């Protein structure tokens, strides 16, 4: 669906993916309309395979038929192209470096333990992953207090890059807490700042229709874990 001078904007993705949520939130912040091309669970469309032949993964942004892949790279692209809208990355170069640092931390250090905890084959492995996640939460709590300049979000008064990168994980974080029998990752005592932040983020107009209900993620996670188990068994 063309929208004025935005060109042709399509996003290949799927509703449960936290990585797909990132560009969706970014588009909402910028008030840019896009066509959401949803992939079916368990299969990859020809368009996806053609648009992201290297990784074959979602999300993929197609802007005037040019593909951009990798969620944080897509968010930066959105921020740069639709520069008239509210900024997602900070303007100061050092603040930008801090934002990129924490976005990379979420993906490279924190999120792999979500997968680890969900797919763990032993209690020991599960506990190790949860331990790592809790350590990460403590670090992120510290970062939040340092970066937010006394405001609601990592980005200050409004949602920014770190908010999107980490906030997109909230539905899965909440689901994990339930699925692991009440493990507290968002902890009122240990991570009070992040607890407040999570509530504000989830309620933000740019986020609330994108972040799925925890129950829906739990249902989906069960399907995913089953699929992973059968794939592992047959390999």
């Amino acid at each position: 669906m063309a929208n004025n001078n935005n060109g042709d904007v399509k996003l290949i993705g799927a509703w449960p993916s936290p990585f797909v949520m990132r560009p969706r939130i970014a588009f909402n912040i910028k008030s840019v309309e896009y066509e959401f091309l949803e992939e079916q669970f368990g299969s990859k469309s020809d368009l996806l395979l053609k648009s992201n032949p290297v990784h074959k993964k979602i999300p993929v942004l197609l802007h005037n038929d040019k593909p951009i892949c990798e969620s944080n790279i897509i968010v930066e692209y959105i921020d740069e192209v639709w520069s008239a809208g509210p900024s997602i990355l900070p303007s100061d170069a050092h603040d930008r470096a801090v934002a990129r640092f924490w976005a990379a931390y979420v993906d490279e250090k924190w999120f792999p333990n979500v997968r680890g905890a969900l797919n763990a084959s032993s209690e020991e492995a599960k506990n190790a992953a949860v331990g790592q996640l809790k350590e990460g939460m403590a670090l992120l709590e510290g970062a939040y207090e340092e970066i937010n300049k006394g405001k609601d979000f990592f980005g200050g008064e409004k949602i920014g890059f770190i908010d999107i990168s980490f906030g997109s994980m909230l539905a899965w974080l909440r689901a994990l807490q339930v699925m692991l029998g009440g493990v507290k990752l968002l902890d009122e005592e240990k991570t009070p700042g992040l607890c407040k932040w999570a509530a504000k983020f989830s309620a933000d107009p740019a986020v609330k229709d994108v972040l799925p209900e925890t129950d829906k993620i739990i249902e989906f996670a069960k399907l995913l874990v089953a699929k992973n188990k059968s794939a592992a068994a047959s390999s």
Partner: protein
Amino acid sequence: MAEQVKVLGSWGSPFSKRVELALKLKCVNYECIEQDLANKSQLLLDYNPVHKKIPVLIHNGKPIVESLVILEYIDETWRHNSIFPHDPYEKAMARFWAKFIDEKCNEGVWKIMWCKEEERGKLVEEVLQHFGTLEGQLKDKKFFGGEEIGMVDIAANFIGYWLGLVQEAIGMELVTRDKFPVLCRWMDEFVGHSVVKPILPPRDELLAIFKARFNATAWEY
């Protein structure tokens, strides 16, 4: 105000050299503070408490960590001699390929260096595919950045110089001229570049370290 630019780095580290290369390309004066990685300094631990790793760029007392993040900071702070394309789409592509180099090529070689014998075949097959994909991006360009070195070339520095030494140390050829002629041609251009060549670590010293580390680990198996 006199600018203060320091790099906490290590003479042999490709990640450290990425930062130095970017600063040199921008003609920015800096002080390199060599770090002993076996005995990490308080300075390093203070400036990079999360990862405790080099490189760290310290600009007027403020630290920036993670080499690719540092490259972005350098390009945004010293705007002449850009290492990133200006066009947002081309910039997104540069970021994509830099990430691909770290996560697939460099990580792939790293896994092969330390893997068990029986895992090697599959890992080699995978990494050769990744090198092929990367080579496809060069086509007939002199550098990934075009006529001049850019962000992707800097990110590929391990492949440009260190990879050959690793191959010699482990006695395995991954990237050869007959299989990857375009990538090898790029490697020659890269190491011969007037700004790159003077900051490359000495070959013999680096090779000796790789051989010693690799042999020590192989003996453990």
